[in-house]
């Protein structure tokens, strides 16, 4: 799991404006020196901070009631317990620290669900760097608590109103800022996407998930798992959860994408009402990398959709696309309805309120057949505090059989006030 030329089979590469190329080359060099070769003890410091500030290692918990329900051993990798509430800090902390080693003074980031933005804002406050976060206006509305949290940590939040105002637009806008301020600024990208070295860099920072989980399951269950499930937006928690299992042939890896409201696409409207680029996407170039994309037949990127902001993206990490083509990773998908139902199921059965993103992985656990095998690890990529309002709204819209009665809170005057 070390350096490479930035290609994963045909995927990957560095498709960015020339103005950014020197910065990307500088970053690739810094990645190599610090994050791969541990120059100046970078990796040691990173591990220490992950532990003390981030709260690692996170537990691998046997989910008793889910195990009973499904007749298999279900283990939860508890990334929801990481500081900030999601796996996102693993990467944000790594990159902000790397930027500090590189002498950068200013950090910018895009965010979808707001989890990467809050993680970056936290890491910047912790390490004393300036921080600006770009976020689509639609996502700002869906994930307001996270907007406040970024502001409280001293970060600026820049609304992006182009297009549908989601993650895709926020990434484009952050790239524009970077192209303008590349000399003193580092762009902390939030997933295993973007130009080389980002996909490798982010994967390496997130690989701590599977590094811990592999050790933990061997201690706890005395065996490797039969399968590992993780939701995939850009794919950072996925790659993090899979990385150390890639060489274990007996371990099946499932990337669970957002099926949204439908797997069909509306080319006329330029809308794919899902975010299932691994399942339904095609090869193309976006945001610096060649990968699988939701695009129309002309190559225009489609507006994706998912009930969870963090999965609502038309692309996916190039390495994940490659692993799917190579047959190592199985792409599956779970739609909005099933994700919401899974959200309620986990909340009620296990006392863990998951992020809506994470709920997709549990949606697949409910649907899957025998294939998953006896021992399954599900990566709990984040907690759902940020999603409370969305869940109330989305639950009210549907007939969710296993939802508690939330009516009293959804009233016109702001609930129980």
């Amino acid at each position, binding site marked *: 799991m070390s350096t490479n030329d930035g290609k994963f089979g045909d995927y990957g590469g560095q498709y960015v404006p020339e103005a950014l190329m020197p910065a990307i080359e500088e970053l690739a060099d810094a990645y190599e020196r610090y994050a791969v070769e541990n120059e100046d003890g970078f990796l040691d410091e990173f591990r220490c901070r992950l532990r003390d500030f981030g709260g690692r290692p996170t537990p691998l918990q046997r989910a008793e009631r889910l195990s009973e329900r499904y007749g298999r051993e279900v283990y939860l990798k508890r990334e929801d317990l990481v500081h900030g509430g999601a796996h996102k800090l693993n990467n944000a902390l790594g990159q902000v620290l790397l930027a500090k080693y590189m002498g950068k003074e200013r950090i910018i980031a895009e965010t979808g669900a707001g989890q990467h933005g809050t993680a970056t804002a936290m890491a910047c406050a912790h390490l004393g760097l300036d921080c600006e976060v770009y976020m689509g206006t639609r996502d700002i509305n869906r994930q307001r608590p996270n907007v406040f949290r970024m502001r409280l940590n001293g970060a600026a939040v820049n609304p992006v109103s182009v297009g549908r105002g989601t993650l895709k637009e926020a990434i484009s806008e952050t790239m524009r800022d970077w*192209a*303008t301020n590349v000399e003193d600024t580092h762009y902390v990208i939030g997933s295993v996407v973007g130009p080389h070295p980002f996909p490798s860099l982010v994967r390496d920072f997130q690989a701590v998930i599977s590094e811990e989980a592999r050790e933990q399951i061997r201690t706890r269950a005395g065996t490797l798992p039969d399968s590992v499930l993780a939701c995939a937006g850009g794919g950072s928690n996925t790659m993090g959860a899979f990385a150390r299992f890639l060489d274990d042939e007996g371990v099946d890896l499932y990337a669970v994408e957002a099926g949204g409201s439908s797997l069909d696409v509306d080319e006329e409207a330029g809308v794919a009402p899902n975010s299932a680029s691994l399942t339904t996407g095609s090869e193309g170039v976006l945001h610096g990398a060649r990968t699988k994309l939701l695009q129309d037949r*002309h*190559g225009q990127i489609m507006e994706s959709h998912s009930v969870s902001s963090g999965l609502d993206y038309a692309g996916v990490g190039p390495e994940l696309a490659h692993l799917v083509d190579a047959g190592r990773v199985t792409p599956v998908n779970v739609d909005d309805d099933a994700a919401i139902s899974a959200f309620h199921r986990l909340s009620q059965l296990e006392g863990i309120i998951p992020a809506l993103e994470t709920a997709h992985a549990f949606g697949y656990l409910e649907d899957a057949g025998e294939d998953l095998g006896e021992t399954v690890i599900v990566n709990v990529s984040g907690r759902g505090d940020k999603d409370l309002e969305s869940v109330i709204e989305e639950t009210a819209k549907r007939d969710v059989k296993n939802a508690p009665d939330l009516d009293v809170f959804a009233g016109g005057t702001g609930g129980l006030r």
Partner: protein
Amino acid sequence: MSRVPEAFAAGPAFVPYLAVGDPDYESSLEYVEALARGGADVIELGLPFSEPVAEGPTIQSAVVRSLEAGMTPERFFGFVEELDVDAPLVCMTYYNLIYRFGDERGPEPFVRRAAEVGIDGFVVPDLPAEESDPLRAACDAHDRDLIFIVAPTTRGERLERIMERVSGYVYVQARLGTTGARADVSDQTDASLARLADWDVPKAVGFGISTGEHAERVVAAGADGVIVGSALVDIVADGHENDAATSDVAARLEEKARELKAGARRGAEQRVPHPERT
């Protein structure tokens, strides 16, 4: 055979940019022709891509208008065919549209079709030299130019890598950031031109040039051409917002083109021999 080199041979080149199909197909035809009348030596025709990461707000909005009016690569090619101008034409677009065109994956089908309709070259803002070999090969096969952007941050080996692959002209990015009209001309331009002095490909400066005076200064500083986009798109946007008649907007574009071209000419007259590189 690309007609770009000869356009630069004739003196300082004025290279306007418009997003094709902005705000609609028909108006856009008139606008491009107006620029030609105003003295354009080369015309950059933007084929809108949904994620224009290198563009500032002005061109982003143009892209949105054009896409909403139904622009597609095929219509773009139809547009070029229909266009009645003499100046060489450069297609400016993002790599995904090039890569996805036609039935086989790769840039060749796009370049072939572009050559058929009379496109002379390409600028692809998200395609650095490192990823450009397939497109360079297709351009060579069809005798087209591949223009690269050189940024203020481009130095040393990178510069050489680009200059080995460039043809037609180098697009000298006047400043860091995205496209967009500015009130001044950046110091970074002089430094970039100095770094490029040894190579004898024409150097056209773009990003932020909005007036005849800018054009004059840039050419005086040694540029072989000026590229102007946002300042022209602003006129289109303004006309669109105020429901101006197409012919009025076309007239304003033609006038602006004359101002810029005249500026470039004045600059050429003041031109001093470029300082020797050490």
